[in-house]
């Protein structure tokens, strides 16, 4: 009953404070951005390029109207710009409520902080995922309408990229919100999440073990899949990365909840 009430409160907050609308606009904005880039760069493909001009030839190839290119640009924008935007938007979600004393009345009424944190983690993450799904639907529709050539990508590759995007968003959302609940500081959660997004993924991509990138053994594998859905992964990579993904998410959630648990007072004689 209490958890259900917390979930309802969070859903109403996402809708009524227009947070979900803003996430959706930003996410769909990434599709528009990808389309604008293509519209501008498609002019390049109309330029009559001499065969000897290799650089221009490469640029032309990069902006060919294919599933592969369009999906790649969309995913890149989503993984970088949209991720940065939502990290900034949610980095204070829990600490702000605490500092504004909004938890005072609910806690004194018997609503446990762990219920409020868990509900917030679920609803915020769901809200971001739904916004992302809207952008994905928009992307897929425009893909089918405007793009004819697959460019080596079949629909399964595109769907895999979408899956990578969604699972990476779940990871980053849980990470940002959990760090915020643990540290009670917005800048800490933003710093950790943005550092992992920019520096962490780059480092992991560049470490190669037995011919395999280290990133494909970590929770960031879904980031890699979204960037490059044609990457080939063996069963071990899948197992280890999914296992670490689930363990890290569960660990963060438990840590966030327990760091806010109100413990009974220890008495002097105890």
């Amino acid at each position, binding site marked *: *009953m209490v958890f259900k009430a917390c979930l309802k*409160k969070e859903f*109403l907050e996402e809708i009524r404070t227009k947070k979900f609308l803003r996430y959706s606009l930003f996410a769909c904005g990434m599709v528009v951005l990808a389309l604008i880039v293509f519209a501008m760069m498609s002019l390049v493909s109309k330029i009559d390029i001499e065969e000897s001009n290799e650089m221009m030839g490469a640029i032309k190839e990069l902006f060919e109207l294919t599933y592969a290119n369009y999906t790649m640009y969309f995913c890149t924008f989503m993984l970088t710009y949209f991720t940065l935007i939502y990290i900034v938007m949610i980095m204070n979600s829990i600490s702000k409520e605490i500092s*504004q004393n909004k938890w005072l009345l609910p*806690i004194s*009424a018997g609503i446990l902080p762990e219920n409020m944190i868990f509900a917030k983690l679920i609803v915020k993450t769901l809200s971001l995922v739904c916004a992302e799904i809207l952008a994905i639907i928009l992307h897929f529709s425009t893909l089918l309408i405007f793009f004819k050539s697959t460019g080596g990508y079949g629909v399964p590759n595109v769907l895999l990229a979408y899956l990578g995007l969604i699972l990476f968003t779940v990871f980053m959302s849980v990470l940002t919100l959990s760090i915020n609940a643990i540290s009670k500081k917005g800048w800490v959660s933003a710093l950790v999440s943005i550092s992992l997004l920019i520096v962490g993924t780059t480092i992991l991509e560049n470490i190669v073990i037995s011919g395999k990138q280290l990133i494909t053994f970590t929770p960031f594998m879904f980031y890699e899949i979204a960037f490059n859905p044609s990457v080939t992964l063996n069963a071990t990579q899948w197992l280890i990365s999914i296992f670490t993904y689930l363990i890290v998410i569960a660990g963060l959630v438990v840590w966030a909840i327990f760091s806010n648990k109100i413990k*009974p*007072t*220890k008495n002097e004689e105890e």
Partner: protein
Amino acid sequence: MLKIENVKKSFGLKNVLNGINLTLNKGEVYGLIGANGAGKTTLLNIVARVLNADAGKIFVDEKEIKIANDLKGLIGYIIDIPALYDFLTPYEYLEFISSPLNLSKEKLKEKSDIVLKDVGLSDCGNKRIKTFSRGMKQRMGIAAGLISEPEIILMDEPMSALDPQGRYEVMQIIEKLKQDGKTIIFSTHILGDVEKVCDRVGILVNGKIQVEGNIQDILNKYSENVFKVYVNESDFEKVIDTAKKCEYFVSATPKANFIEIEFLNGGKKKMFKNLSGINVDINGIVLKEQTIEQIFMNLSKEN
């Protein structure tokens, strides 16, 4: 009804509460007086189990309360500036806040209607809280504290942020709660409010309740220590000399047509005897009346 036993709390090196002991009987309104930063809010937060004490115990009806969840409707908490989720309507907020009580929809609606009527918000049940004025938000905070029909109500400066009209409305609500037999701890630094509604007060200074008791008893006790002796100006010196000979003498301050003589506790009779036996025309001896405010100020200065 409510027993606070040796509650201690410090923030870093600062001791905010140094062993608070307090017992409240059913239906009693207790005024907790203290300057800003005296620890009133900290004490109430600990009683509401929003904050952990470093030491001490809280009992409600003989049962020890260890975490907020143990309270579930036993205590209602009303704070000075309630931070509400203003995207919700009063009905939705009350539904959220009362979720630990597991009320049926019908019961919840019935209770919400009653508390909203009590606080004068029955016409605004479906409006978003963000459209409310400060006074309305304060009343909404009171409704949230009362939805569980608690027997004990903690009020942390419930009127400090309100204009005279808002203060009057909240005072009416408190008086109604008092009539309903609720046990109330009412913290404030506005002492006029205390004298209006409280049966008993405690003055919190330096993390301890320094003075406690019935308001009239406190006033009598502290008023007894100062006489106003009305004499002609030419006799001032004689009177002061006589007063100084009394073992309970503290100070003598000449004023326009009287002398204010302060003496130690228990010296009233002796001092009165000495002064009345003096060979001067005394126009009158009266005990100087003190207000709770003056007593509080003196205690704060002493500490």
